[in-house]
């Protein structure tokens, strides 16, 4: 057998297997770290990375897509077919519908089913005969996932009305195109009627003739069409959305690495313990002829063992966790970005390689220093000294100097701008702050142990004194464990503060912004990018109610600006209703509102301004009503509704270019003297049979906060994993400590210590570690939260968030972590109590 393997098996593997619990804890810590990276990667890929614009369903055979904000005049098609080239055009209606008015939004696509092209599109055999169009009443063809059958009657909510259709066939998925299995297809005429777009098209798919490049045909068509129409390659909308989701995924991925960073500290600790424990063995093996390289490799192999086994288990855990994560991420994507349908979770070779590579790299890197340390053990010295207590050389002053440098560099890095909209320097700054804090921890531990020792002894007793001395006596180990847990605590605290601050900011913003008494929108769980409309007469009739003082109409269109999705909206900007809008400091709200209705002016939301580098005075060119229109930006306002951002113009300005007065939302202001409930009853009467939801001010806010909380659940889940990894590390390290200090515990039993006292010493140590880590973690977490709020969030998403301490949340989280840390001492405590003191002392 290979001698290297024999040495590894005898010197490394056997000792590891002799302590199965501790080995398992370390392996599991790595597995969780790797698992969470894999889970987030898989779930992120499924929920956001594989994003496919639902409205681009069934465009697979088109090369180009012609579209226009507010729709395309149907007559354009007549002109297009006269072009002297063999283009094939597929007119389309694209809308979302809700089956029976409930559940997820389903893409409702209108196609010209009489044409043979369209029949191809919805798969041969699905539309058995064009005659179906004539014989079936309002026929639709449905995706296979909807569970419907030919002949079923379905009721679909489109905009604010319910429409009845008959299923004429089920689409057979052919090439696994995402989103196709839940699409609903109707003939274009029927779709136009159902969506209220008679005479209009949402887009026209184009198949270009062979012989020329796509670019050539794109340019050609652009020249032939009014400048307001966009001609983009098929899939462009999907690409735009993917681009928008990239920052979100990037930040999520970074969060998923925290557990791995915490794991790195624990690997470092585990290997360090191994080295110290086997000093004597190293000495013997060196004396027997092993060279330094072999010793280094042996300990690196130990780390590799943790990395390989941990990563392998991590793959399985990650796949399982991805199932839960995909739902959470899907929620966030839906609430903040775009309607989406998560793709199936699929391992990709690259994803697996990255995660496993990271697991191995982190394990090896973390083990480098202790492995090198092991190789420097001089044989004679090691054998003479025997097994040594674990005392890492702590060069306090040097470490403090390093800490100051690292913290200063970290602080400096936060001032640097983003790189391609990614806050890369800010994340590097976070690493520097973590490193700086880790460097200062030994000094903090020493200071704490020095000053608090007698106080704790008085408060708790001799157990606290012994625990404190032990922590101080093995300051290297204590510092690493404190650092690992402190990082997990800091990340939890920082994300908690960031989310809490964001929540408070949104809540305050809603207080200012949402001043109306009642809000109306079409029913159905629409995502942020969907803007179903309500009949015009609803707004008109409500405005005429005697108890209503004002009605704010709001109409939104999804648009593309500089290759990224955004929303163009028109709203009533009377002084009375818009007075609550908050603009960035230095901007005169009254003046802005007065000018907004006077011409081609717009205000933009803060995320839009940040994303597109737009400010007051900038001019936005928007393709509207057959031409490119130029809007001057009058101001930037605070908004937390959508990350993609808003361009808002006056209602009348919007109507001038897009004269479709149906509204997406309505805000109703009830006269102070009137009873809101009575007005609401009148509004219910106006709505009649239409599927429109009415919310009171309080309900709307509560709903928004609920959505907010759902959105950030994933971040809490990630923090929880990091904390679990850290606590498992603490349990493993305490177990190692118990084994290393068995002589001390045995001696204490000889000196009259009762078993509960021994257990208390270990719980005290766990408690002190928890206390230190929580204290340091909270401080570091606060610093990191400032970076998250004022740098990373600003550079990634562009929101202004006011700092706020979410005290109950922090208290609950820190108490939970503290209790978990103390509980992590239970098993090691039990192990210490079970040891036979006579055997231990005899063995010594």
């Amino acid at each position: 057998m290979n001698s290297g393997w024999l040495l590894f098996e005898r010197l490394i593997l056997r000792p590891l297997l002799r302590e199965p619990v501790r080995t398992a804890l370390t392996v599991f810590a790595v597995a969780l770290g790797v698992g969470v990276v894999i889970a987030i990667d898989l779930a992120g890929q499924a929920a956001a990375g594989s994003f496919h614009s639902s409205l681009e369903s069934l465009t697979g055979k088109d090369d180009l897509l012609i579209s226009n904000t507010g729709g395309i005049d149907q007559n354009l098609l007549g002109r297009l077919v006269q072009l002297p080239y063999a283009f094939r055009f597929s007119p389309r209606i694209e809308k979302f519908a809700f089956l029976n008015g409930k559940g997820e939004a389903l893409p409702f696509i209108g196609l010209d089913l009489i044409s043979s092209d369209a029949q191809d599109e919805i798969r041969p055999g699905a539309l058995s005969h064009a005659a179906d169009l004539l014989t079936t009443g309002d026929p639709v063809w449905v995706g296979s996932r909807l569970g419907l059958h030919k002949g079923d009657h379905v009721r679909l909510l489109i905009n604010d009305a319910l429409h009845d259709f008959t299923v004429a066939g089920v689409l057979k998925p052919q090439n696994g195109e995402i989103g196709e299995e839940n699409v609903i297809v109707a003939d274009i005429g029927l779709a136009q009627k159902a969506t209220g777009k008679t005479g209009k098209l949402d887009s026209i798919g184009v198949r270009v003739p062979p012989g020329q490049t796509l670019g050539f045909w794109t340019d050609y068509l652009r020249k032939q069409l009014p400048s307001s129409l966009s001609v983009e390659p098929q899939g462009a909308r999907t690409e735009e959305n993917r681009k928008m989701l990239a920052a979100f995924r990037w930040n999520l991925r970074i969060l998923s690495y925290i557990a791995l960073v915490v794991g790195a500290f624990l690997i470092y600790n585990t290997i360090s313990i191994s080295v110290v424990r086997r000093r004597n063995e190293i000495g013997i093996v060196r004396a027997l002829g092993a060279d330094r390289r072999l010793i280094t490799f042996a300990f690196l192999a130990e780390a590799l063992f943790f990395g390989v086994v941990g990563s392998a288990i991590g793959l399985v855990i990650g796949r399982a966790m991805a199932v839960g994560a995909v739902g959470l991420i899907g929620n966030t994507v839906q609430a903040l970005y775009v309607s989406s349908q998560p793709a199936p979770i699929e391992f990709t070779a690259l994803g697996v390689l990255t995660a496993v590579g990271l697991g191995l790299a982190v394990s090896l890197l973390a083990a480098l220093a202790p492995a090198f340390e092991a190789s420097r053990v001089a044989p004679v010295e090691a054998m003479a000294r025997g097994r040594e207590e674990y005392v890492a050389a702590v060069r306090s002053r040097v470490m403090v100097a390093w800490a100051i440098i690292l913290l200063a560099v970290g602080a400096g890095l936060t001032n640097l701008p983003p790189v391609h909209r990614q806050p890369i320097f800010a994340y590097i700054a976070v690493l520097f702050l973590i490193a700086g804090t880790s460097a200062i921890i030994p000094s903090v531990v020493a200071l704490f142990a020095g000053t608090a020792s007698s106080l704790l002894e008085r408060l708790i007793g001799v157990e606290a004194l012994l625990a404190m001395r032990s922590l101080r006596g093995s300051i290297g180990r204590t510092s690493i464990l404190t650092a690992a847990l402190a990082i997990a605590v800091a990340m939890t605290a920082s994300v908690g503060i960031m989310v809490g601050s964001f929540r408070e900011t949104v809540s305050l913003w809603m207080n200012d912004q949402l001043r109306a008494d009642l809000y109306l929108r079409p029913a159905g769980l629409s995502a942020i990018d969907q803007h179903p409309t309500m009949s015009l007469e609803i707004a008109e009739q409500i405005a005429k109610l005697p108890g209503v003082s004002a009605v704010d109409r709001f109409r939104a269109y999804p648009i593309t600006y500089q290759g990224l999705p955004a929303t163009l909206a028109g709203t009533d900007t009377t002084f009375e209703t818009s007075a609550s809008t908050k603009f960035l400091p230095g901007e005169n709200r009254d003046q802005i509102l007065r000018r907004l209705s006077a011409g081609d002016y717009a205000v933009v939301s803060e995320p839009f301004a940040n994303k597109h580098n737009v400010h007051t005075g900038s001019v936005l060119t928007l393709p509207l009503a057959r031409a490119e229109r130029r809007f001057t930006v009058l101001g930037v306002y605070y908004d937390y509704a959508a990350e993609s951002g808003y361009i808002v113009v006056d209602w009348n300005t919007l109507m001038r270019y897009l004269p479709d007065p149906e509204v997406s939302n309505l805000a109703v202001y009830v006269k102070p003297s009137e009873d809101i409930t009575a007005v609401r009853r009148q509004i219910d009467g106006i709505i009649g049979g239409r599927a429109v939801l009415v919310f009171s001010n309080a309900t709307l806010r509560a709903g928004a906060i609920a959505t907010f909380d759902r959105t950030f659940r994933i971040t809490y889940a990630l923090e929880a994993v990091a904390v679990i990894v850290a606590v498992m590390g603490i349990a493993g390290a305490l177990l190692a400590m118990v084994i290393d200090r068995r002589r001390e515990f045995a001696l204490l039993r000889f000196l009259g210590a009762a078993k509960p006292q021994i257990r208390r010493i270990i719980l005290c140590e766990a408690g002190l570690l928890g206390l230190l880590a929580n204290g340091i973690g909270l401080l570091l977490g606060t610093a990191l939260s400032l970076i998250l709020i004022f740098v990373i969030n600003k550079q990634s998403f562009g929101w202004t968030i006011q700092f706020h301490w979410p005290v109950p949340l922090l208290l609950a989280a820190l108490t939970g972590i503290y209790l978990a840390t103390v509980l992590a001492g239970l098993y090691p405590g039990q192990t210490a109590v079970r040891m036979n003191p006579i055997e231990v002392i005899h063995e010594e």
Partner: protein
Amino acid sequence: MALLEVRNVSKVYRTQSAPVAALRNVSLTVDCGEFVALVGKSGGGKSTLLNLCGAMDFPTAGEVLIDGQATSNLSDAALTRLRRERVGFIFQSFQLLHTLTAVENVELPLLLARTPNARTIARERLYRVEMEEYADRFPHQLSGGQQQRVAIARALVHDPKLLLADEPTGNLDTATGETVLALLTRAAHDFEVALIMATHSNENVALADRVLQLRDGRLEHTAVLR
């Protein structure tokens, strides 16, 4: 009543291969203030007997009575209490806690027993072993002899009636060993403590009141020197 009575005690350890009898039918009594030396080869059962006498372990057969209390009838908590109040241990390798100073090591049994004025008593005991000026030093700052003196102070700090010493000079050079031994016997005498010492040293044996020889777990020979 004798301070310590060991009646027909046997101790069998269960190992993976076969049971090993460490003590076979041993009986002895020790009175207050008596110095008993235990001699015999390594593995003869000296340490096992000391552990049984110190209420650290139970006999497989027979019984051990300390101050009239049979250890076999006591719970773990009661045994712990008994050790705290009546027994002091001294080990060959000193067994001081490296994270504690000399005086902290000495006061440890008092702290574990929640005895008040622990520090004052500990300092007094250090004075008795001529180590008061080293009170605030850590073990690694002390020589072997000094460490063993601290260990003696610790063993006496709670006024035990029985002092059990397992090769207390085994790790010391001859001169230091002699000094430590003189100190130990003097302290035992001053505190009127019964001292049972496992030893290989003839010098140590010479100072004992009685010598018991153990061979293969049996008490083979008893010699009364004084």
